[in-house]
């Protein structure tokens, strides 16, 4: 299972890449494998304020429709509109072209409470 260093993870299998007050997030390789072929992504509107535990997107596969929660709080600055016509990008490249949205106004301590790549690898092994 691909778990790249430098990203932070949640127990619900979202990842986030922090860069100052902005952050990019998506779902992990484990999540996309578990969901199977992704057929649709319901993305938030730009400008929406989000907080940890709040739903930010819905990822729908042939098996299920799953809520995606934001790992950090902030305001949606950009969404990956490519996913509207090509949701399968998430299956192909969950940490790259398969990003879901970019947040701004992310607090400085947003990473606390999230797992590092090493911690997430152990978490997955323990599952």
């Amino acid at each position, binding site marked *: 299972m691909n778990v790249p260093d430098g990203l932070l993870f949640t127990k619900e299998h979202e990842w986030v890449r922090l860069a100052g007050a902005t952050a990019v997030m998506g779902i992990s390789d484990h999540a996309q494998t578990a969901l199977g072929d992704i057929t*649709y992504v319901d993305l938030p509107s730009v400008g929406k304020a989000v907080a940890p535990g709040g739903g930010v997107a819905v990822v729908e596969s042939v*098996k299920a*429709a799953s809520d995606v929660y934001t790992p950090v709080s902030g305001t949606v600055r950009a969404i990956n509109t490519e996913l509207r016509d090509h949701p399968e990008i998430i299956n192909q490249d969950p940490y790259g072209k398969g990003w879901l949205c970019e947040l701004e106004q992310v607090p400085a301590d947003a990473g606390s409470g999230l797992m590092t790549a090493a911690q997430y690898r152990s978490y997955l092994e323990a599952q």
Partner: protein
Amino acid sequence: MARMSYVAHVDADRAAMLRAIGVASEDELYAAIPAAVQQARLNLPEGQSEVEVEQLVRAMARRNRTDLLCFLGGGFYDHYVPAAVDAILSRGEVLTAYTPYQPEVAQGTLQAAFEFQSGICRLTDMEVANASLYEGGTALYEAIMMAVRTTERWRVLIDAGVSPIYRMMLRTYLANMPVTLEEVPSVNGVVDTAALQARLGKDVACVVVQYPNFFGCIEDHTALFAAAHAAGALAVMSVYPIALGILKTPGAMGADIVTGEGQSLGLPLCFGGPYLGFMATRKQYVRKMPGRIVGLTHDQQGRRGFVLTLQAREQHIRREKATSNICTNQNLCALAAAVYMALLGKEGVQEVAQYCADNASYAYSKLTAIAGVTRTFPATFFNEFCITLPGDARDVIGDLVDRGFAAGFPVGRYYAGLERVALVALTEMRTKEDIDRLAAALEAVVS
């Protein structure tokens, strides 16, 4: 009350069950229910034999006037139902009112629903339709909630020309929801476009109109829908499907969600149904659409097959986050509509629609030629129109019942100030002679 033979348990069963749960008697079982409530008795007669019940019901049925010449409409119309519709409906393979629970084994049922959806899409000129809803009013409610979900806005603007029965249902459904339904009075029997546009704003989810409206009037809503879109609202339309055979389509006007009552597509007039709701929309909104959708696909060997598609948004998967609580459809009635549309085809529906319009045009000229009977609204109509009578429409219509006519609907029942107005509907079932007879009878009654 006498024990009915269809109650499976005998006294010994009852005693065994009471013993098993440690209760001495039935009275003790019900002891938790307050005595005041327990003592309430339904005022029901003693049970009767089958033959007695049959005689009783037949006597009641005889009180119905089924001999009246029907000019009633108001959303439900007396169209011809080809015999093949009932013949196909009565086949054991399809005689279920319900969505199958293991749907893919019932390929014929799914194909019928697919054909129904295709027919609705062609009539409305929309991109996708669902496998049907309960009837026209609840379908309109679902359309409004779909607009609310899509826009995340809470105000709904509805023209008063939308069926008063539907608007009553909407008020009931929305009573405890954070949605505001704002009725905009009609002017001269049509939408008050200026008033409606003035109310548009950032919090309006949709504008709702009916086509033709309750008064029978038809108007082009293209400009209104464009204004709604410019304000970020959706355009919702309740339509009479037969009229779409010859009228400009909802798709061409820019409608986003189209619903309607499907009774006119092969279902007989019944007091209370079962009727048929339909819903169609644009592809971009399909995931917000409630109800089941049947899709066409191919299996691994390339063979054609039908499946229930986009189920992930439904409640058996998404639970409380489902698109709506509609997880079923009106399958047998939808099948009737599919058979009806297939039997008539595009040209057949056009012919029926033209026949209705021609009949209405003739009836309108005959009835408004009577002294004291005038046109109520200047707008164009399809198969139904309002006329203003010299007296209260309920009295005139009552007098015409005595002469063998269900001559129309008294509009004042739902619209204050229109007490002298009757709504008269024509279908392909009425002949020129029928219309001439109605005109003669009306003339005799009002003179």
